């Protein structure tokens, strides 16, 4: 192996091989997917007038995704539902169907994740749709989920003295909870907490796609 051009050619082409086979072929295969309706016309076009899926995030939910990213939520949570029969994603009620490539076409940052220290969140907005639950859970997860090892995100909240009357958005922490604020004080979410909760409530896989229908319950 003294021939430098040959050595370099080899080094170059081995990586080209995997880049072409994995990355480029996926790009050609999946890089041009567009939103579509749950069912298709006979000629394969979306049905006019019906909703196109997936739906793009809007409003403060978009900001909420940035919070999700900068807090590093992806360290413990996936956003992908595996097929029924692989693991227990379906049985645990994490989603009615597996997620497919088209579900992610609007995401500028795809957060599939690789650890399930916490549960999957691809469909958390349908599973847990109560706002209060999410606020309490983020402020301290052990209010809603005793024994959870998720860290508190109390830095997204403020503790303040109760004014003439309690703030409308103050958290509803059960009395006697060790995480409740001292008497005369209340916990209110910051804009960041509002955005994050809006994002979580927007995470939904509650629609069918032509290539993936809901799995049957046996």
């Amino acid at each position, binding site marked *: 192996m003294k021939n430098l051009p040959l050595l370099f050619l080899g080094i170059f082409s081995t990586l080209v091989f995997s880049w072409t086979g994995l990355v480029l*072929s996926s790009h050609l295969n999946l890089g041009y997917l567009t939103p579509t309706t749950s069912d298709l016309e006979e000629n394969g076009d979306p049905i006019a007038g019906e909703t196109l899926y997936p739906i793009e995030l809007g409003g403060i939910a978009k900001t909420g995704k940035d919070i999700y*990213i*900068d807090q590093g939520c992806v360290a413990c949570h996936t956003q992908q539902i595996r*097929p029924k029969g692989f693991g227990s994603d379906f049985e645990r009620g994490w989603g009615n169907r597996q997620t497919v490539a088209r*579900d992610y076409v609007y995401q500028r940052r795809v957060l599939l994740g690789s650890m399930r220290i916490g549960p999957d969140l691809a469909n958390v907005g349908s599973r847990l749709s109560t706002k209060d639950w999410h606020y309490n859970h983020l402020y301290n997860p052990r209010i809603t989920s005793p024994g959870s090892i998720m860290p*508190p995100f109390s*830095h997204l909240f403020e503790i303040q003295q109760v004014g003439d009357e309690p703030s409308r958005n103050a958290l509803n922490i059960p009395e006697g909870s060790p995480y409740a604020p001292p008497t005369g004080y209340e916990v209110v979410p910051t804009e960041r907490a509002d955005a994050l909760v809006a994002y979580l409530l927007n995470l939904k896989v509650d629609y069918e796609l032509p290539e993936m229908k809901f799995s049957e319950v046996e």
Partner: protein
Amino acid sequence: MYERKKAAFKMSTDTTISPGSSLKLEGRVQLSRIDASLKNAGLFFLISAMLWLMVGTFLSIVSSYKLHTPDFMVGSEWMTYGRARAASYSVMIYGWANNAVYCLALWMMARLSRGEVKHKGLLVVSGIFWNVGVSLGILGILSGRMTSVGWLDFPQQVAPILVISYLLMGIWGISSFVNRKTDEVFVTQWYFLAALFWFPWIYTVAQAMILFTPARGVVQSVTHVWFVHNLFGLWLTPMALGMAYYLFSKVLGKPLHSYYLSLIGFWTLALFSSWIGIKYLIAGPVPVWLQSSGTIASVMFLIPVVVIAINWFATINGNLGAVWKSPTLRFTLVGAICFLIVSVVGVLVSFRPVSEVVQFTHFMDAHQHQGVYGFFTMIVFGAIYFAMPRFTQREWPSASLIWVHFWAALFGILVYGVGMSLGGVLQGLQLNDASLPFLDVMHSTVPWLASRTIAEILLVIAHSAFFINFFWMLLVKPSEPQQSPTLFEE
């Protein structure tokens, strides 16, 4: 002049266990000239690596402790688990591993090519920029600018600094090779040359396709797993393999068992390793044929593993006593064994039924740790034990500290590996049983997570001993020069 030659000759024999090295006097003088020519740049990178190692060790133990004690340090947004965790592995890769590689690979490459290194000033300046880039990246993660793309967590603005400073450093290794003054080419040189090309390529492709002009949807995810596996498989792995080949052969003063095996090992690794990453998307939202191709590549990867292992162990066969006595080789041997373990485990987890249990669990964390720490870092430790006496012309001041470093690191690897692997399998089995509530499953992982903190404590001890020994050697001039290399006691 004669005095200098004599000194150089003495130094080389002192640090070689087998005095019957094949090098002639002239060759030894040339080597010590190369050592001297890279002394300042090499030490700059090693000192940077050591400081990052300590920062990374601190961040690792904090994030490990936080995971089973979630109310620890509440209110400190900078150290919230997701950020501390990302910062800890980013420090270990871009701070510790890369700086160590810049020193050791460029130095070994220069030695093997018999070329003194010129314009070292520029090398150090690029190194400073690299470290400024890494520091900004870590501050970016901790202050809320992270990307949440694993192993690429630095804010994207940092990437150009890293790429440009890398190119100015990588070119040194390539130019030493191109201008080599030797006829033979040693296997280590292929590995280094290839890795020096591969790293900037995978890094810029990943930055471009995920962060700067994001590809649509899961194409990002495919690019990501391709990058993550290649950062290990085409950057850290070839660097560590190259170092191990060099150290086994050099310290024992023995030629490699087989030239042809090393040739086969190199090219099959290059071919199959880069395709393995896709196995992390088994059952994910990508076409099934892609997922299966990852399984095939993983199985094929057994070829280079077996070939490399035969070559290594045939080379050291009959010299195990010397291997065990030399700090350099004892660390390298553990790294080599971890390479075998991590490769075989890598094949197992690429099968769907196994993946169904261990995917997304702590088992994968243990698997990653065996690779990046047990394999790569242990070999780098060995290489640093070899390099420092040649840069400083001093011997390691304390054999006991090397002993502490070795055993604490080895037990750290074992406790981490056994605890998290076992805990991960149990976690996976429980997760797959939908009748067990998720919170119960989570709760039952806590003792295993605590065992990881114990492992991290062992690693703190190991790294502290190493750190003390390193700076002691560097800063304190011995009253009288030590006559023989520092070895483990019989």
